[in-house]
């Protein structure tokens, strides 16, 4: 048997295993192509705008994905985004770039620690993750409201350039936002697939008992997954302050972000039962969820109906998935 022939089944396995990821990237490409025909001009301006506006949801969805892969769920990520956004806007306003960078680093590390604590509470208390994170989402968004009672604050121009490609947050080069999207996500995705700790997350997600019996520290791994979720939420908050230039403590902003992150994770092919899924698919679905709105508006649908269509799409995709599973079960 030649080498090429031996590679054949391997390649097929890779195709089957990553079929969903390829599918959503194809869908994203098709949607972008379609969008470019819907509007008169499609150039660097649109690419910058799409990539920078996707940043918060992409970060949040990747963070949620890591937690879901490890067998949990975090309904407080949106509230953490609020907290990060508000702290950044409040303390970064008018500061030199060095201090701003320091605040950003402290924020990422701080929220990672904070959410690791949430993960620790979940594993210690025996209270379900949904309940714990719903409760902490109240705590974090309350804190956010306390720090910044009404929208305001600001950040350094360099910070805005990093996430949006221009110091004023308007137009600018598409490269900074694209790189800022890809680098953190690639780091997390490769870590999850290659590092020992990352693989532990997949292991405890598929079976906590089996993972424990093979000597893995389930509690630590779950806390680590929540820590990464917290760090990504902090990044999402920083991106928000860079894009909008202000902090916004409204509760609904956070809860919407949480809902979208869960939707992106599920549509991205990550099983809510844990242990299955690929982070790259989630990046694509997060961008899809963000560009859906401008596409529908370019088609002349009003924005309320756009929300309805988005909901139907999410439920519809999941229904088709369920139906396929059902038919496959019947066939065998």
């Amino acid at each position, binding site marked *: 048997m030649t080498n090429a022939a031996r590679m054949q089944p391997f390649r097929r396995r890779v195709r089957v295993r990553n079929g969903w990821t390829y599918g959503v990237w194809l869908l994203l490409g098709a949607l972008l192509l379609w969008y470019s025909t819907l509007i008169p001009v499609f150039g660097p301006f649109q690419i910058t705008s799409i990539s920078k506006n996707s940043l918060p949801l992409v970060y949040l969805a990747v963070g949620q994905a890591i937690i879901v892969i490890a067998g949990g769920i975090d309904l407080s990520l949106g509230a953490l985004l609020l907290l990060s956004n508000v702290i950044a806007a409040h303390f970064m306003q008018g500061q030199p770039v060095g201090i701003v960078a320091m605040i950003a680093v402290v924020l990422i590390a701080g929220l990672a620690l904070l959410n690791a604590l949430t993960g620790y509470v979940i594993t210690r208390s025996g209270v379900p993750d949904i*309940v714990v994170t719903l409760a*902490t989402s109240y705590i974090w968004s309350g804190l956010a409201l306390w720090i910044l009672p009404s929208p305001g604050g600001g950040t350094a121009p360099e910070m805005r350039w990093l996430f949006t490609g221009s110091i004023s947050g308007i137009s600018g080069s598409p490269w900074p936002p694209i790189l800022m999207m890809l680098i953190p996500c690639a780091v997390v995705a490769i870590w999850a697939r290659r590092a020992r700790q990352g693989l532990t997350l997949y292991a405890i997600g598929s079976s906590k008992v089996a993972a424990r019996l093979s000597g893995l520290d389930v509690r630590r791994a779950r806390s680590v997954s929540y820590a990464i979720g917290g760090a990504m939420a902090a990044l999402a908050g920083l991106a928000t302050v860079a894009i909008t230039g202000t902090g916004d403590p409204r509760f609904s902003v956070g809860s919407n972000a949480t809902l979208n992150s869960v939707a992106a994770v599920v549509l991205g092919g990550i099983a809510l039962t844990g242990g299955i899924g690929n982070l790259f698919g989630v990046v694509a679905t997060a961008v899809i969820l963000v560009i859906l709105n401008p596409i529908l508006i370019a088609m002349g649908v009003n924005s309320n109906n756009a*929300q309805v269509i988005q909901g139907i799409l*999410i439920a519809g995709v999941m229904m088709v998935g369920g139906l396929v599973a059902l038919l496959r079960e019947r066939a065998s």
Partner: protein
Amino acid sequence: MRQPSSIMGARGRVGGMTPFRAWLGESPLVSLVGVLILLFLVTGVVQPGFFSLNGIRNTLLQAAPLGILAAAQTVLMLTGGIDLSVTMIATAAAYVAANQSPHGASAAIIMGLLVGLIVGSLNGVGVTIFRVNPLIMTLAMSGILLGLFTAWTQTVLAGATQVAPFIKLLGGGAFLGSIPYSVLVWGVIALLLIWLLRRSGWGRLIYGIGDNEVAVQLAGVRVWQVRLSAYMLSGLLGAISGILLAGRTGAVDLQLADAFLLPSVAAAVIGGTSIFGGVGGYVGTILGALILSVLNSLLTFLNVGQAIQQVVYGIIVLSLAWGYARLTRQNST
């Protein structure tokens, strides 16, 4: 069927625990009543006017819609499901009821309940037949409803936002001057639900499905029918709660029931219903709803501002749930 309240097995020292601790673990509802009384006393100290018929009535008036929403959550959680669209169902039903109010109260109420039943059925079909995860299905449904109603309030539902006088009476009025009608409605629902869950075959199936779905299926039960009925009931209860809420406030808006989502889940969890199914009951949920309502009054009286109120609420819900889990040693790691 395992209900914490009805387990009266071996007493005494279990694994080195004191008899008192073991007794509390076996009948956790006692500690819930303790927490309720404690909170009630603290609230009374903060606001002396609270220790009156009026204070108690206001607490019950607050607790009724929450208790009914939490009832929907309890039934679904017993089957291992959850409904995150229940507050949006409540808002939608209230909106339709207000819109139909010019045609008379009974028409308005029936239309409102119908909305709940339809949305609940859609949720149920998605979860049972298409096997969508309940969390995703109900989240998506909540988004769909919010979008639809935001659009419809400017078009087909652009009419009245004031509810009929009878609904106002039902939501805010009082029977014989002291017992609010909404509490009576809640009481009837509570009695029915407790009876259904404890004594009827349907109730046994609800617990059975949450405990071990495969076993129930192998015993010849059409599991999807039971699940579907649970989601329909949840939609119906959501609609009732929404109509009562609309009656209490007199007018409807799209944020009517928004604030009740976490409390509805929290009331059931504090009351000892497991989110994984099969364990719990409605009596605990009633206590949970009362505790959260008194807590809400306490935080309002303390007048600390919305931000601190949210933080304290979150911390207390978390610690109550934690305390309950410790007491009954439900392990889930």
